[in-house]
């Protein structure tokens, strides 16, 4: 019997996984959400930025493969900024990141039709250089990008009149699924405060920076995004669909199933191994 279990066609496992994801969507459980300290810290940091004061930079250093995790974070942070009248500079250190930034912005703007390009937010174009871009922004943001994404010179945008370098930036939040140059370059060289929104894979690697305050707060994975949505909903009200929170029921069920898979796989393995050694 154990041999049969071990030899199970993996397509059955795929099917079971799919069912475990779909079922909670149809029969939601509404499990409670506890907010972890790194998420709370980032929320508080953004919440403390004065309205119409220094801007927040939201960097999309990511591609579409990370979107299910980073997308809900971006939407929640943008909503928080728009609700609190915090000016936002959206940018992408990676080329696909610029397209994602634009997509996220369009999604949030539906709920905030009064927010205007060049007054409440600016979408920056892609500039080659990765870390060099971060360093150049510390000297002169206008010279780094020259124009916004749509080709309008930055000097002619009202929002950018008073923003020249990191002195006028309250916080940089980098949404990433890989290494980020913001910590070594913007924080170390210019003392710029950095927040992170990272995929769950990257979250454990970011903890050393949290402990040294090189990163002021962090949202980790879909769970972190769900925590952020919960916080935003509690304090300012969340507009639209809470994608991450809705996904957490499925996440819970699939995790339980994965744990059961590991246990069952091990029992089957040791049972067959014992039988082989007995014979």
């Amino acid at each position: 019997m154990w041999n049969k279990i071990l030899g199970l066609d993996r397509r059955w496992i795929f099917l079971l996984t799919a069912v475990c994801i779909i079922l909670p969507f149809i029969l939601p459980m509404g499990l409670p959400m506890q907010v972890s300290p790194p998420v709370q810290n980032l929320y508080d940091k953004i919440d403390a930025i004065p309205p119409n004061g220094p801007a927040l930079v939201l960097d999309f250093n990511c591609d579409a493969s990370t979107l299910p995790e980073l997308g809900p974070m971006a939407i929640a942070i943008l909503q928080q900024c728009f609700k609190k009248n915090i000016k936002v500079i959206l940018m992408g250190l990676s080329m696909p990141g610029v397209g994602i930034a634009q997509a996220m912005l369009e999604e949030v703007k539906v709920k905030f039709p009064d927010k205007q390009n060049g007054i409440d937010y600016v979408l920056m174009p892609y500039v080659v250089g990765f870390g060099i871009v971060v360093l150049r922004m510390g000297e002169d943001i206008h010279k780094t990008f020259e124009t916004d994404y749509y080709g309008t010179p930055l000097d002619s945008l009202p929002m950018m009149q008073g923003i020249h370098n990191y002195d006028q930036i309250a916080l940089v939040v980098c949404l990433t699924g890989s290494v980020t140059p913001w910590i070594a370059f913007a924080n170390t060289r210019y003392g710029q405060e950095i927040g992170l929104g990272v995929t769950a894979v990257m979250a454990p690697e970011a903890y050393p920076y949290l402990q040294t305050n090189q990163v002021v707060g962090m949202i980790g994975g879909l769970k972190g995004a769900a925590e952020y949505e919960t916080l935003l909903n509690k304090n300012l009200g969340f507009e639209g669909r809470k994608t991450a929170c809705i996904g957490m029921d499925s996440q819970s069920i699939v995790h339980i199933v994965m744990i059961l898979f590991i246990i069952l796989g091990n029992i089957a393995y040791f049972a067959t191994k014992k039988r082989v050694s007995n014979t």
Partner: protein
Amino acid sequence: MRRAVPLRICLIMGIVMIIQFFIPHRYSQDFYTKVLDWNIIIGIFALVLGIQSLFHSEWTKVRRRRSGWGFSVVTIVAVIVVAAIGIWGGIGEGSVFIKIYRNLTMSMQATMFALLGFYMASAAFRAFRARTKEATVLLIAAIIVMFGRVPVGDLVWHKLPDFVEWILMYPSMAVQRGILLGVALGSAATSLKILLGIERGWLGGSK
């Protein structure tokens, strides 16, 4: 000439930029910003070269009729169509270019990586075995984190999320820091080797 000049450019620019870091004078800053600007401009050509090389490899497959060349035709047509739509149709809000990116490219990439979720489930069943004491510790830690980082873990034991946070903030972070320190020392050593011309891999194989 062919190897000595680039090695010298690398050494001189590297040392100058290290020295510049410690000189907060206006002239030093001006030089620094100029170098950053030039790096961005030079980077553009590297980017163009990268795009060209990707396109070239697909084109070669079609020209030489290698196996699966029909799919390379799909790639080439897609490159030309999407690039043309973007260059002539614009990349602004609501443009066809953005619609293609949002609905097709993003969907395809997200789905390709989503496949890993299924393979992970299969691997959990087939590959993760507590063969040794060390592997058992790894599995137990994984199970605790998997349970503690979802809301259902909170229902099982309300202190579980805090315990998982502690694992991440102390024992796990200690290891990540150890690795980080090693990487930092390694990258500093490699940087010095590159500047001093000991590491020359970037020059390529030819003379």
